[in-house]
């Protein structure tokens, strides 16, 4: 394991050290005193393991293709931006545009997430991106979502804010959003509807719940005993006729 003290280190230097070590065959990293350094793990294509202590900067794991990143604290904005494969596990909260344009791999967030989570996420054949959120989400959850799976658990009581904010699934035209509860109709985007779970959903959802519990050392939820609903798009081309006469 390579340990790096990132205190006061510019992001370019930190990422250069990681890239060079990965090229030399290093498989495991522990970064400590991280404070706002951007692009950690950017574009790495090997299944290395990176453990981060402190708050990593924006675009954590951007374009990443295989590594596993563990964050003990909170994440900032743009976690998993356009990520292709691998896994990011965050023990705290995460910010806005989490999983932006994500096309594979998985993000597990124990706490709350910000606005526009999963925006433009997409799937292709076996590449199915997954986002699982333990807390609540801000507005525009799953905006313009084209594929993949998002799970919103709302585990910690809705005292501070609703399970999901407004404009839920606005512009969504592919993939599925599982929500532990039933979102109020006025919060839904025009392009989605709420459905009961069907045969086959448990087979997708239960392994994700198990993995969530494993990552954070919590009791696994049982799909059958929880009030899950799912959101699906009503059209695969919601804007197809926008400019047609």
């Amino acid at each position: 394991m390579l340990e790096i003290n990132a205190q006061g280190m510019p992001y370019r230097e930190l990422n250069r050290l990681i890239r060079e070590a990965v090229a030399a065959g290093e498989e495991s990293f522990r970064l400590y005193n991280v404070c706002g350094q951007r692009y950690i793990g950017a574009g790495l294509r090997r299944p290395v393991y990176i453990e981060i202590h402190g708050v990593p900067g924006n675009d954590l794991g951007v374009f990443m293709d295989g590594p596993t990143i563990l964050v003990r604290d909170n994440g900032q904005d743009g976690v998993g931006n356009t990520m292709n494969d691998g896994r990011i596990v965050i023990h705290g909260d995460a910010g806005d545009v989490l999983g932006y344009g994500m096309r594979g791999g998985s993000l597990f967030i124990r706490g709350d997430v910000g606005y526009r989570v999963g925006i433009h996420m997409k799937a292709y054949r076996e590449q199915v991106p997954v986002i699982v959120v333990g807390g609540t989400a801000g507005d525009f959850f799953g905006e313009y979502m084209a594929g993949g799976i998002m799970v919103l658990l709302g585990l910690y009581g809705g005292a501070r804010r609703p399970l999901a904010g407004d404009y839920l699934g606005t512009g969504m035209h592919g993939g599925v959003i599982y929500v532990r509860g039933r979102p109020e109709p006025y919060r839904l985007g025009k392009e989605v509807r709420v459905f009961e779970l069907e045969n086959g959903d448990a087979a997708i959802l239960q392994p994700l719940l198990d993995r969530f519990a494993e990552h954070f050392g919590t009791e696994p939820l049982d799909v059958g005993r929880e009030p899950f609903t799912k959101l699906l798009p009503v059209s695969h081309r919601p804007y197809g006729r926008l400019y047609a006469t």
Partner: protein
Amino acid sequence: MREGMVRIPSGCAVSAVMNTRGRRINGEAITRSIACMHDRSNGLGGGFAAYGIYPEFAELYALHLLCDDEAARLDADAFLQKNFEVHRSEPIPTRRVREITDPPVIWRYFVAPRRECLEQRCLEDERDLVTEAVMTVNNRIPGAYVMSSGKNMGVFKGVGFPEDISRFYRLDEYEGYMWTAHGRFPTNTPGWWGGAHPFNLLDWSVVHNGEISSYGINKRYLEMFGYRLELQTDTEVVAYLFDLLHRRHGLSLSVVCRVLAPPFWKDIDRMEAAEREANTALRMVYGSAMMNGPFSIIVSHSRGLIGLNDRVKLRPLVCGRKGDFVLLASEESALRLLLGDPDEVWAVRAGHPVIVEMERSVAA
């Protein structure tokens, strides 16, 4: 090509620190916080607002001026002498910093409005005279601009990265109970000394990440109340809107925020009758003060801080608290750097302000 003729899209950084019991903080702290977000700005603007730095002149207005040359400074000087008793006039101390090139003439005045000027103009509130003077200098005296005009506070800004601007102005030699900071990445307007943030009027200062797309409407509205917008930057409207709505129209700070970033009509429709009526009235009366476009702003005044996002959260803002210290910043890392392990840290919600006030018992 001259700066201002090309368009470079990106973001800015904002940051603020306040001690709610009035304990004073060295300028070094806010500098570290804003420097942590270095990559959000591009060297075309940096600045700071500092509160509580001039206790020995607490009763006087501190006017910080930027002047293109000494001639412009003398024109401004003559105008100020006519309207104010000038208790002290001096260059703002700076140090030579390699990164800061071609600074203007930078001066400060500690002044009190002349009583006869107030009487002549039938002005009851001396702050109206100060406001008029600021507008006149910015608008009528070529090459002279007022950076700040509050009491026991001052704005220090210019073209450069914020950490370099801080060294240039020797901010490590100042102590204040509240600081705000800005690192600029100009998008639609030129990166010049007067266009750096914070923007100020009286004790209002504003730092802003984003763009006020409603600038034209807001500007015309403010002009009806005598404000002149001369600094070629959208953020200027925010300082004047707070002055107009809070100081002159008497709206509470939370209502001012409601005017600037009002609930959507769909949300107003779902409110109880009384609340619906109040919010409808605010939108009708103050429609031209509503700010459109992406923004996260930090507004400061002598007794507190306000953090506000646009209604769909197109720019980031995080708040943190540890004991009697409260911080706001574009990124959580910039809070952590100063607070270590905060008691609380949360993302400011779209359109819902964070309003922090000095403890009542503290005189400041």
